[in-house]
């Protein structure tokens, strides 16, 4: 029974749900922007290690 003790904390299930929503929103933004990014910019960045 002690396993379920936090169920008595009001709105505890929101912690799990909010965790997922925060992650998913962040993830979508990152993916969207990464996909939209310009190829030349990306190529420049990718070549940085080879330039020294």
């Amino acid at each position, binding site marked *: 029974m002690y396993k379920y003790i936090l169920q008595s904390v009001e709105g505890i299930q929101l912690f799990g749900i909010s965790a997922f929503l925060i992650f998913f929103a962040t993830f979508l933004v*990152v993916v969207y922007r990464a996909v939209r990014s310009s190829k030349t910019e990306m190529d420049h960045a990718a070549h940085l290690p080879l330039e020294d």
Partner: protein
Amino acid sequence: MSQVQQFQYDNKIVRAFGMASFIFAIVGMLVGILIAFQLIYPDLGFQAAFGKPLPAFLTFGRLRPLHTNAVIFAFVGNGMFMGIYYSLQRLLKARMFSDTLSWLHFWLWQIVILSAAITLPLGITTSSEYAELEWPIDILITITWVLFGINMFGTILKRREEHLYVAIWFYIATWVTVAVLHIVRSFEMPVSMFKSYSAFAGVQDGLVQWWYGHNAVAFFLTTPYLGLMYYYMPKAANRPVYSYKLSIVHFWALIFIYIWAGPHHLLYSTLPDWVQSLGTVFSIMLIAPSWGGMLNGLLTLRGAWDRVREDAVLKFMVVAVTAYGMATFEGPMLSIKSVNAISHFTDWTIAHVHVGALGWNGFLTFGVLYYLWPRMYNTQLYSQKLANTHFWLGTLGIIFYAVPMYWAGWTQSLKWTEFTPEGILKWGNFLDTVIAIKPLYALRAVGGSLFFVGVLIGVYNLAKTAAQGSFLSNEAAEAPARSSSAHPKGEYWHRWIERRPMQMLLASTILISIGGLIQILPMVFMDSQIPKISTVKPYTPLELQGRDIYIREGCVGCHSQLVRPFRGETERYGEYSKSGEYIYDHPFLWGSKRTGPDLWREGNKYPDSWHYNHMYDPTTMSPGSIMPSYTGLFENVLDISTTEAKIGALRKVGVPYPEGYEQQANADLTAQAKKVAENLKSQGIKDTQMEDKEIVALIAYLQRLGTDIKIKK
């Protein structure tokens, strides 16, 4: 166009970290081999050769944390700094911010390692896995880490290259997360110079521990090495990373998801279900960014696979990244509750971590070393052939290590849970399940030794390389000064943050904090929310001293104190564990491996004399046992001068000893010790004058374990 500036890269600091990494690879692995052989020959032949058992400082319990700390913080830690100090300067086109800080960082880090090498065999330990070092060393680690941070961010600020390459984001995330983890895990109440108690108790301590422990793997063993992968794989293959876009998604998704996964170390424990589920869900999601990163690394070799056949550097790197892929697929699988029910507490976990440590960290470090040494010494590698030999010995070593451990893990789990048709445990004597896997332990020791021989060959090869070349302490370079020219409107958003290290730091900090806060903060509620079990009381002074001996000897390395709610466990050990039973456990001692049986319901299972004989020579009570003899406990007089400070420290972290109990504690301790000594006498123990010895305290503690909710006869 700005003027071209001349400057020099500091190679000396890179070499220093590289040499330290190799030296501690030898030390850490040697300790590993030593304890691997102890599981086959418990006293390593000491009894036969010297007529006395293994000295306490060489026992498995005390050396196991030395092995893990040496490999993680000394071998991989120095390897990480080597890789960062070399690549950071070149990616930023700048010498390190301050040579003084570089060397302070180097020497303080070696002092931390030396302190660990001295204190851990002496039994000075907090017992929290990978955070065993006591509080003064924790402070030294903090100082060193801050100096490293100042040096790194100083370099970033005075850089000539505007854009921060993906490797550097990983370095930044590593720095900030390790800082946060280390500080929170180090909340402890000092008792003396060499002893402290965790500020957290029981299940809370467990959650903080595995939030820390898991993310030590994530942010000490993984993110910095991913940074190294993103720099050295393209360098070695001489082509850019496969997809820079993928690296962006990889970075943000990985650091954000990783921080939530810790609770998968506590499945089926007394941790609330919702936290366990959160840990499982995020662990499974972790496959995506992990494999995204792995594929990004491997696909960097597109069109260059033919070179992998010849180039030892690429060979090491390819196997490293492949091992990373295997370990990061396995990890999420192990986080599924039904799989974890099988793997947890068994050698499966040991196999899993060694694929990561030997394969991913070990091989990537060797790849980078083989890449750097010829370049810094301005010569060719002394022998490609020896490097190949090292590679094959290492690869075979990993296989000979991992396969027997997988087999051992599955064997353990099957035997622990096997019932006869009549419904009784088929392997009721735990020891039988240990003896069954001893041949596999022997094979593992062979595998580890193979890997070790490979490392020795590597050291020889690099020493010869150094001897035939001449070291470039300061490598000349030139680059235009950083121009703050206007950036086109509507530029790609991520470029914006790539130019701003402080914003990058802030964004990483926010992302990695969310997971910790959401999981750990509600657990703070628990103090008021958890109904105390009325019969659960704080430890008596004698039991407390016994518990500290249990911690000192590293018993937690082989014995868990957590009965999971499975029939196989409740039949074997007794009633499954409840959160309320552990509220005075600073620190918690659930452990993560059962080389021996669980001890949570050990109290009152056997008479005092059983423990007395068993601790003196385990084979008298359990023939075939691989537990070491603890004869020292029968000679050492229990130090009761610490009792007062211990009671005081525990009260400060919330254990309800009455005010002023310190003064009475030692009288209670002596009275209880006398009682144990009388019990021993009445049970036929001939030795006299035992009541002031350490063994009595340990027996008192063992007999208390898990008895608070048992119905007393």
